[in-house]
């Protein structure tokens, strides 16, 4: 892969090894420029304007939706702009789940889920008297088709699983799980927040019913994410929020709604954000997922190999297929370690990564997570590994 660092202003301003992409990716010039274009040239509202500037904003906003629809092989009206992946995943539970879930129904989730994909269903299930069922994880911590078969029943109504775990980096066999779930007439909600930045997604091929992701993890701006839903399902869902731009006719005591996607997007949408998101998608397409995957694999393998040779380092996901390494320095709290890395200008994350169930499953208080993206290179891995080694010595020496 050609050196991408030059595309990212922050990497040209300071010495930084950024290994926290799984939290948020850095922002490339192309996306920043696009945001500036909106704010400098047509910073106006969409939809309701009949003058040229507003027309330009409306067109750009609509083009953004089409670009993102194309990116996952969905159609225009199946792409809903939300505040982010969390908001998108909640919409599935609060609108679709609220409508269909009945007492005694079962909802399948996993301990690999990010809080944003387990809590909405947990709370809904409690409210409805439905049952939350956890897929038993494999010894490595994976969701397998076999384990899924064990929990899938005629009472399963919803399957809510992550596509790529944000801690373990494992890829869930969503396509096969969806096929099985559909045989039981269950619908499948996919958290693709960690998949969309790193894997080509074709919703027709997966055949999943809902799928969500965030812009800020894939070169895009903060403040916007996407919910994909099958049109047939979106059509029967009620809007959650009511107000401007989602309605057709409004009377004093009733109103009717527009069709999807508009009925789910009340008020002024995240205009600049959606336009910037589309530019981020174009940036990804230009690089291509083949190159992205190959690059991340190379970096990951190099890092895993080196880490495995350092005594006193535990890797929790040595076999992951995406660019995430979940690890700890034995006997050192990850927050202590992270300050060491920080002084070496290495940014990575320590904590529960919004996945407390998995951290409990691993039976540790917290972990360190290093995650890679196109702007990382082999020199970054060298710096990282060198820092781990010195950290290991440092903490041992001072008595941890």
């Amino acid at each position, binding site marked *: 892969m050609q050196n991408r660092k030059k595309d990212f202003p922050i990497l040209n301003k300071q010495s930084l090894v950024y290994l926290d992409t799984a939290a948020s990716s850095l922002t490339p010039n192309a996306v920043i420029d696009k945001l500036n274009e909106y704010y400098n040239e047509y910073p106006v509202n969409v*939809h309701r*304007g009949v003058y040229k500037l*507003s*027309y330009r904003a*409306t067109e750009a906003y609509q083009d953004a939706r089409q670009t993102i629809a194309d990116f996952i092989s969905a159609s225009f009206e199946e792409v809903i702009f939300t505040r982010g992946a969390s908001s998108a995943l909640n919409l599935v539970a609060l609108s679709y789940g609220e409508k269909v879930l009945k007492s005694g129904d079962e909802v399948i989730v996993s301990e690999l889920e990010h809080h944003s994909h387990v809590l909405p269903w947990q709370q809904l299930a409690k409210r409805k008297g439905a049952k939350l069922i956890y897929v038993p994880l494999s010894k490595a911590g994976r969701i397998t088709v076999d384990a899924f078969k064990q929990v899938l029943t005629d009472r399963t109504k919803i399957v809510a699983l992550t596509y790529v775990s944000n801690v373990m980096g494992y890829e869930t066999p969503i396509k096969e799980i969806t096929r099985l779930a559909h045989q039981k007439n269950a619908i499948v909600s996919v958290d693709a927040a960690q998949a969309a930045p790193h894997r080509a997604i074709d919703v027709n091929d997966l055949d999943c019913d809902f799928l969500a992701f965030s812009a800020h993890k894939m070169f895009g701006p903060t403040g916007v994410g996407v919910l994909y839903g099958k049109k047939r399902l979106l059509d029967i869902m009620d809007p959650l929020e009511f107000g401007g*731009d989602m309605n057709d006719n409004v009377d004093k005591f009733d109103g009717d709604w527009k069709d999807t996607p*508009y009925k789910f997007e009340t008020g002024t949408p995240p205009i600049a954000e959606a336009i910037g998101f589309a530019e981020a998608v174009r940036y990804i397409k230009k690089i291509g997922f083949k190159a992205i995957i190959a690059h991340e694999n190379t970096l990951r393998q190099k890092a895993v190999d080196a880490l495995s040779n350092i005594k006193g380092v535990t890797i929790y996901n040595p076999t992951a297929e995406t660019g995430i390494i979940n690890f700890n320095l034995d006997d050192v709290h990850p927050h202590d370690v992270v300050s060491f890395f920080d002084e070496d200008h290495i940014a990575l994350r320590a904590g529960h990564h919004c996945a407390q169930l998995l951290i409990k499953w691993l039976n540790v208080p917290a972990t360190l997570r290093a995650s890679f993206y196109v702007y990382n290179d082999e020199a970054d891995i060298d710096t990282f590994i060198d820092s781990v080694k010195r950290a290991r010595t440092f903490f041992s020496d001072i008595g941890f």
Partner: protein
Amino acid sequence: MHQLETLYRQIIMDHYKNPRNKGLLDDDRYIKNHIKNPSCGDDITIQTLIKSGEVKDIRHEGSGCSICCSSASVLSSLLKGKTVDEAQQVTKSYLNMIMKQPFDESIDLEDALAYQGVTKFPARVKCASIAWKAFEATLKKASEKTDE
């Protein structure tokens, strides 16, 4: 001369002030299609009677700007009496014309040619297309019915 004069041609104003075939009928044989333009509130219903492959009658009703309302009237007088095939071709040509796509110039758009000026006002293209889109949907419905 104000730019806008190229848009508000006399034919358009005539159809706006004196709409032809206006008002819906209470007749089940007609196919009805209703389209709204979310971006400006235009709201048009087109009602069409198709028999033996011919467009026997077109009625319209709705509210909106002059471009939107007049184009429903122009459509109704232009396509009434045409075969379904002809109507389809005219509709396609017209929509291509206002969206600045290549269109078959051998097809006579007659009064509807007056809307060519709308291409210079992209924010108004929707106004000029909404009645025709509703009619296009009608033809689709009709062909599905025939297929049954």
